[in-house]
C-alpha cells in the first residue's frame, strides 16, 4: 500500500514539474507561434470517423469535463481550483434512487460486472449494456481474470459495512466517479446512461450483499 502511495506522490511531483516548464514555455516570446494541434486533431478525426449503428459522430463532441481531461492527459495538468470546480459540477449530477433502496440482486450484478458489451458500434442497442467491472477491478476470488486499472474491490462490503452514508457514497461513485476524482478513468455509469438505475442497484448488491462472492 505504501508503495502505491509513493508512486502517486512521485507522479504528482512530476506533473507539477511539467506545469512549471509549461508556463516557462508559454512565456518565452522567441518561440515560433505554436500550431493548434488540438484543433487540427479534432478536424482530422471528424473527417476520419463515420457514424455506425448507435455510435454516431456526436460522440466526438466533448463535454467540458472530457475537453479538460484531454488537455490534462496531454500534459497540461488541471489547476487545483478547476479540479475542485469540476468535481462539484459532477457531484451535482448524481441522482439517488427514488425509493431510497440501494440494493438489488448480486447475481444480476455479477453478470453486469462480467459483461463488457454495450454502446460499441458493433453492439445491438436493444441488448442491455454491461459494466465490465472485472476489466479493471478485482471483485470475487473465483474470477482470476481481472484487471488492475482500478483498485481491488474484494470484500468491499465486508470491510466497509453497509451504513447509509457508505451506500450513498458508493452509489454516487458508480453514478459519476468524477464527482470524487476529476478525470477519473472510471466511466460515469449513471450520468452517461451506461447502466440503468436497476442495473446500478444490482452492482451495489454485488458490492454489499453478505451473500455476494465479493464478500466471501
Amino acid at each position: 500500500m505504501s508503495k502505491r502511495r509513493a508512486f502517486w506522490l512521485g507522479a504528482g511531483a512530476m506533473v507539477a514539474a511539467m506545469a512549471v516548464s509549461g508556463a516557462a514555455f508559454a512565456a518565452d516570446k522567441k518561440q515560433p507561434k505554436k500550431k493548434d494541434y488540438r484543433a487540427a486533431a479534432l478536424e482530422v478525426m471528424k473527417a476520419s470517423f463515420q457514424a455506425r449503428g448507435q455510435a454516431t459522430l456526436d460522440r466526438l463532441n466533448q463535454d467540458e469535463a472530457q475537453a479538460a481531461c484531454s488537455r490534462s492527459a496531454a500534459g497540461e495538468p488541471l489547476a487545483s481550483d478547476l479540479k475542485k470546480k469540476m468535481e462539484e459540477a459532477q457531484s451535482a449530477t448524481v441522482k439517488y434512487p427514488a425509493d431510497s433502496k440501494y440494493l438489488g440482486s448480486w447475481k444480476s450484478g455479477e453478470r453486469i460486472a462480467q459483461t463488457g458489451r454495450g454502446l460499441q458500434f458493433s453492439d445491438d442497442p436493444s441488448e442491455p449494456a454491461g459494466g465490465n467491472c472485472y476489466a479493471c477491478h478485482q471483485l470475487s476470488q473465483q474470477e482470476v481474470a481481472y484487471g488492475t486499472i482500478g483498485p481491488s474491490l474484494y470484500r468491499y462490503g465486508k470491510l466497509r459495512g453497509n451504513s447509509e452514508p457508505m451506500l450513498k457514497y458508493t452509489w454516487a461513485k458508480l453514478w459519476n466517479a468524477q464527482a470524487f476524482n476529476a478525470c477519473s478513468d472510471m466511466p460515469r455509469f449513471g450520468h452517461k446512461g451506461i447502466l440503468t438505475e436497476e442495473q446500478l442497484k444490482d452492482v451495489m448488491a454485488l458490492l454489499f450483499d453478505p451473500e455476494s462472492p465479493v464478500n466471501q
Partner: protein
Amino acid sequence: MNEQRRLVLKAGSSLSLLALAYSSGLLRPGAAFAADWNKAAFEGKNLDEVMKAFGGSAPAESKAIEITAPDIAENGAVVPVTIESKLDKTESIALLVEKNPSALSAQFDIPAGTDPYAMVRVKMGQTSNLIALVKAGGKYFFATKEVKVTLGGCGG
C-alpha cells in the same frame, strides 16, 4: 482398420474419380472422403460414448501418458496440447475435451517407426479436463489434465 483407411484414401485421392462420383450422383459432397471418418466417435458426448464408438472397453488410468498443456489458456479458441505415451505398442492417441459439446477433438494413428507423440491445438468452450486416450497393445488407457479458460479484452 488402418489398412482399410489407407485404401479408401488412395481411391479417393483421384480427383477425376471423385468428380465422376459426384456427377453420377453416387456420392453426396462430404460423403466421399468421410467414409472412414468415425462419425459416431466424433459425436460422442463423453468418454463412455467415444469408447463405445471405438469399440473398446473401459480404459484404465495410466501414469505412462503425459499431457503437456497450459494450466490457464488466455483464450479457449487455441489451446496447445502435446500428448506423449510411454506405453509399449502404442497404436493410437486421442484427445478429448470433457466439457465440449462433442468430447473427441482429434485421433492419431501411430504406425511403427512413428513416436507415440502428437502436438495439436484445440478449442475449449470452458474450463475443463483434457483426456488423453491411448490404445496400446489392444487395450485403452487414459490420463487427464485440467485447463482453465479465462475471459479477456475490454469489449466483452
